[in-house]
């Protein structure tokens, strides 16, 4: 009983609003077919027509299926009519998939043979499940994290909006340099995220300063290395989704990528240094330095490995595809991993540099505070 009374009306209202948003948005994406220009069809019947075992030129065995699908169109002029779709898929499913009854797909209608519409599948309608997972994420974070969970979500949303807005500006005005846009973004990201994580306190300001200094220093080191070696060993040709000069995009991505980790180290350093100071106002600078380095040692390894795993794992599917296509191991690795490894290493450099930088900034802020008193 006590627990329920502890929850304030404010929390109840928030929870109610979220629950309403959740139900409303899920109901919306289930019914939003008419908002799409492309025809959407819901699979109502499938039959597998053919099944063939294939072996490709590298000796990989797979099974190909041809699936005949009947689907009902959910929007547009042909709404309510049935369409015949053919789908070819493999059991590995690298670029194709089996469809089941109830799946919703985007189709293009190719021809009308008499009464019967014929078409082909262009893509899957994924918005419903993306939304459901997003809500599961939101509720888990709120239930586990309470206020901190809410702040993490708010920070995430604001950062996405800032990034999206910044990229809009970059795309619209050619003369704006991506590095300038990203510099401003980094400034905003740091301020917003750190203020949300630990509020308007001295330690937050110390962390913000440390993050920005560390980012600039590690940016210079990485740029210097790439400039000296003239990018030797980086295989930009495998960088995907390129519509623009790859070098700047890579550098910008590299810095946004390591920013989170640098902030993590900076805030951990400054909040533990301030905690030491709060406990004992007369603590000497030497003692602060010694415990700061100890804390830094502890977190250095784990945070660099967070970044390593996040970057390296993403290239596994492409590596498998390369190796299965009889690429030499060295070639496959250098093609797919060089950029990821460079990102992880540069991020690691940023993290390690943040430890002394965070340490001295925190000491500087503490000394200033001490002088004021």
């Amino acid at each position, binding site marked *: 009983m006590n627990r329920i009374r502890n929850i304030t009306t404010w929390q109840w209202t928030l929870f109610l609003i979220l629950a309403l948003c959740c139900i409303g948005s899920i109901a919306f994406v289930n019914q939003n077919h008419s908002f799409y220009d492309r025809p959407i069809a819901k699979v109502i019947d499938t039959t597998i027509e053919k099944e063939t075992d294939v072996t490709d030129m590298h000796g990989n065995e797979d099974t190909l299926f041809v699936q005949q699908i009947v689907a009902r169109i959910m929007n547009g002029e042909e709404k309510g009519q049935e369409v015949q779709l053919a789908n070819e898929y493999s059991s590995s499913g*690298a670029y194709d998939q089996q469809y089941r009854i109830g799946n919703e797909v985007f189709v293009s209608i190719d021809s009308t043979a008499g009464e019967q519409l014929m078409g082909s599948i262009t893509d899957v309608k994924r918005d419903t499940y993306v939304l459901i997972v997003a809500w599961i994420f939101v509720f888990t974070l709120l239930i586990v994290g309470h206020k901190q969970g809410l702040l*993490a979500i708010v920070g995430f949303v604001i950062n996405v909006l800032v990034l*999206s807005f910044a990229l809009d500006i970059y795309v619209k005005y050619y003369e704006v340099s991506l590095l300038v846009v990203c510099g401003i973004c980094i400034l905003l990201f740091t301020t917003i995220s750190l203020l949300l994580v630990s509020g308007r306190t001295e330690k937050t300001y110390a962390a913000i300063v440390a993050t920005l200094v560390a980012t600039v220093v590690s940016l210079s080191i990485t740029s210097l290395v790439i400039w000296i070696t003239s990018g030797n060993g980086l295989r930009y040709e495998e960088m995907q989704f390129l519509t623009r000069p790859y070098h700047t995009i890579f550098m910008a991505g590299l810095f946004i990528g*390591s920013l989170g*980790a640098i902030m993590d180290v900076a805030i951990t350093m400054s909040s533990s240094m301030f905690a030491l100071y709060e406990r004992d106002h007369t603590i000497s600078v030497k003692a602060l330095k010694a415990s700061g380095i100890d804390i830094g040692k502890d977190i250095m390894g784990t945070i660099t490995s967070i970044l390593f795993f996040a970057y390296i794992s993403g290239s596994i599917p492409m590596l498998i*595809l390369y190796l299965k296509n009889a690429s030499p191991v060295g070639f496959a690795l250098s093609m797919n991993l060089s950029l990821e490894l460079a990102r992880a290493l540069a991020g690691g*450099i940023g993290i*390690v540099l943040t430890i002394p930088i965070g340490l001295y900034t925190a000491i500087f802020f503490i000394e200033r505070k001490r002088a004021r008193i």
Partner: protein
Amino acid sequence: MNVLVWLGVILLVLMIWVGGKSGARSFISLFFNFGVVFFTMFFMLDPNANPILITFIACIVIGCVSLFYINEVNSKTVMAFISTMITISILLFFIVLISKKLMIQGFGEEEEEAIAGMSLYIGVDFIKIGASVIIMSTIGAIMDVAISIATTMHEVFKHAPSLSKKELFKSGVSIGRDILGTDTNTLFFAFFGGYLALLIWFKDLHYSIGDIVNSKIFSSEMILILCAGLGIALVIPIASWINAYYLVRAREKLNKV
């Protein structure tokens, strides 16, 4: 000289400069972990092997390296290890379910250029590989939270050995909450940075919101980010409960003797 060698050497020097011996050990464990990911991938090449099982074994190895080699085998690391494994099992189950529904396995149409000219019918199960990738991307963060909670809860228990199981659990969760924000941030930005090129591509080619949300590559990215956040959130109550359970039981045993 090669950029990667340079960056690697700089990282090593910095780590030793800042961390001394333990810095060197962190650097070695990075390469160890890299090796594990590498071997995992080789095992996944076999079409008859189950990628989920391989990932699970890989996670055990990674856990052993990062927890038992960097620290040492003691009740803290063992508890952190157990909580990491439980979280990963739950997450794995959830991810496989979701990726089947969403059909986000393999490569999207935006990647067509990269995979052109390659045989796609290679017999391995890309749904399971996709799930493995998500797990491997987040294991670092999950372990970080698990070990932080275990260490701090042991500290709390040492200073206040009479705490009840419920109070211990509460202290664990509140420690977790403090890390939650920063760790999710670390991963969010890592993924943002990695996919900056994709975001610019979407903007350049004037994708509508509907196109973006439904495209395979974006939804798989979203699921990766969301599942990473979920993993970090889930490990907090799990690790707190396991540590509370262990500490209280250890105390009862001690009292009996």
